[in-house]
């Protein structure tokens, strides 16, 4: 479904140094790793939001970087992207933000009533009350609500793939758990392939079929959650221990 082939990207220093990774259709896949190790960069190469210096990404057998330019447009239609800080458009209200998730040509030819129904449905799916927030601007929403609106925008176009870029960052543990349940439910209900980048290791291990870990720009681990927990690799073990300690501290503070 998604195939990263030798993806290399450097800014001032190399961030990804040749990552090979395959996410299968219908799978729920989590990508872990310390900060600055290139998880979000890898995710953005899927949609050509960041162009790798070397390597390629294939989505459904279509090459992002070595195929015709129209491939990018086709691939973007298949994918819903949930941004780390929601990335809602400041000047548009919730209705307009979510409606932007529909492809441009579809939005132009769909009657406004039908667009309103789809926006309404998408907001209900993410447990928001449409009547209360449709006309609100992003600045009037809480952090958790912004994330949900961002998710609604990503799913309203009925994508086949959802890319989640740290969707629980900045949320308290209760909201984190709620968003994780939502991710799990959406991936099942909508029958989509999900690639989740997260710092919440325990949450990722609970909801995903397979996980991988990036370390210093390379793929350090790829396997099931069980294999990840029992990995003999010292780097993986240290990461799991640190993540568990951070999660325990978070819970204690809350």
């Amino acid at each position, binding site marked *: 479904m998604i195939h990263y082939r030798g993806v290399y990207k450097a800014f001032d220093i190399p961030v990804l140094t040749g990552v090979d990774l395959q996410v299968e259709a219908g799978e729920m896949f989590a990508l872990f790793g310390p900060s600055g190790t290139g998880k979000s960069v890898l995710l*953005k190469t899927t*949609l*050509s*939001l960041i162009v790798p210096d070397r390597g390629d990404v294939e989505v459904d057998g279509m090459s992002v970087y070595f195929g015709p330019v129209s491939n990018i*447009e086709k691939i*973007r*239609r298949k*994918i819903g*992207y949930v*941004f*780390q*800080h929601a*990335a*809602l*458009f*400041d000047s548009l209200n919730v209705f307009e933000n979510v409606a*932007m*998730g529909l*492809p*441009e040509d579809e939005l132009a030819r769909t009657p406004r009533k039908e667009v309103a129904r789809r926006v309404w449905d998408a907001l209900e799916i993410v447990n928001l009350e449409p009547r209360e927030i449709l006309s609100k601007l992003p600045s009037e929403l809480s952090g958790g609500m912004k994330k949900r609106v961002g998710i609604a*925008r990503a799913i309203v*176009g009925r994508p086949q793939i959802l890319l989640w870029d740290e969707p629980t960052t900045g949320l308290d543990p209760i909201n984190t758990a709620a968003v994780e349940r939502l991710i799990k439910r959406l991936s099942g209900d909508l029958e989509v392939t999900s690639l989740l980048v997260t710092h919440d290791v325990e949450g990722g291990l609970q909801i995903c079929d397979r996980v991988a870990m990036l370390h210093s720009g390379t793929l350090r681990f790829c396997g099931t959650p069980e294999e990840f927990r029992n990995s003999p690799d010292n780097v993986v073990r240290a990461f799991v221990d640190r993540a568990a300690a951070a999660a325990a501290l978070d819970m204690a503070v809350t």
Partner: protein
Amino acid sequence: MALPLSNVVTGWFAKIGRSYRVTLDHAGGLGKLTWDSAVAIVSLKVRFRDVLNQMYIMGIQSLPIVFVTASLAGIVTSQQGGYQLISSSPGYVLGTLVVQSVVLELGPLLTAIVLVGRIGARITAELGTMVVSEQIDAFKSLGRDPVAILAAPRIVAGILTMPLLVGFADLVGIYAGMQMASLDVGLAPERFFYGARLFWHNWDLFYGFSKSIVFGFVIPLISVHMGLRTRGGAEGVGLQTTQAVMFMILTILILDAMFPPLLLQ
């Protein structure tokens, strides 16, 4: 301890090389943005409503500051011209001086500089914030073209609005200059306009409006270009906005200096 000469020379070459690279990078970026905007306009991807909205922000909302700037420019030109000319030349020459100064130079240039501060800085900061908060990436991920949505409407609005603003500034500046000439040196309005007509060429109006169209294109172009290249967080937005303002003012002054040899020969 002094550095060896070879290190100093190598350092100079490295600096020159970096400057060339940055200049070429900006030139390429501006060229690509111009081309992409033109393609978006020709392929009718630009929404008329967005252009009108930008024209309102650039035009109607700028009228008060343009009014004040043009009035003061007309008043000062009239006062200084009166001080220098009135004892040695016929009074109506003051009409020539004020009208020519305002139409040829002060109207277009001061309006452009006002727009750099009011609109150019705003566009760079707005787009820069959209870059660092991933809103531009969100547009792309949703299959939307940020150039058609954000850049082209601003460029079209700049080209359409600037000549109107300059026309307004010219009228206000000339009127303020005429009133000041009447108050300061007792020059009657008919004598003022007699002097204005005596040395008037219709070409001068074309010259002033040509400048306004070029400035109206350059200000949004540079501000969008700089905004879309913002990196980092709030600090990056601030830094980029400052650099954009310097870039726009320098470009306008250089273009302004190129107009006389090109169009006034």
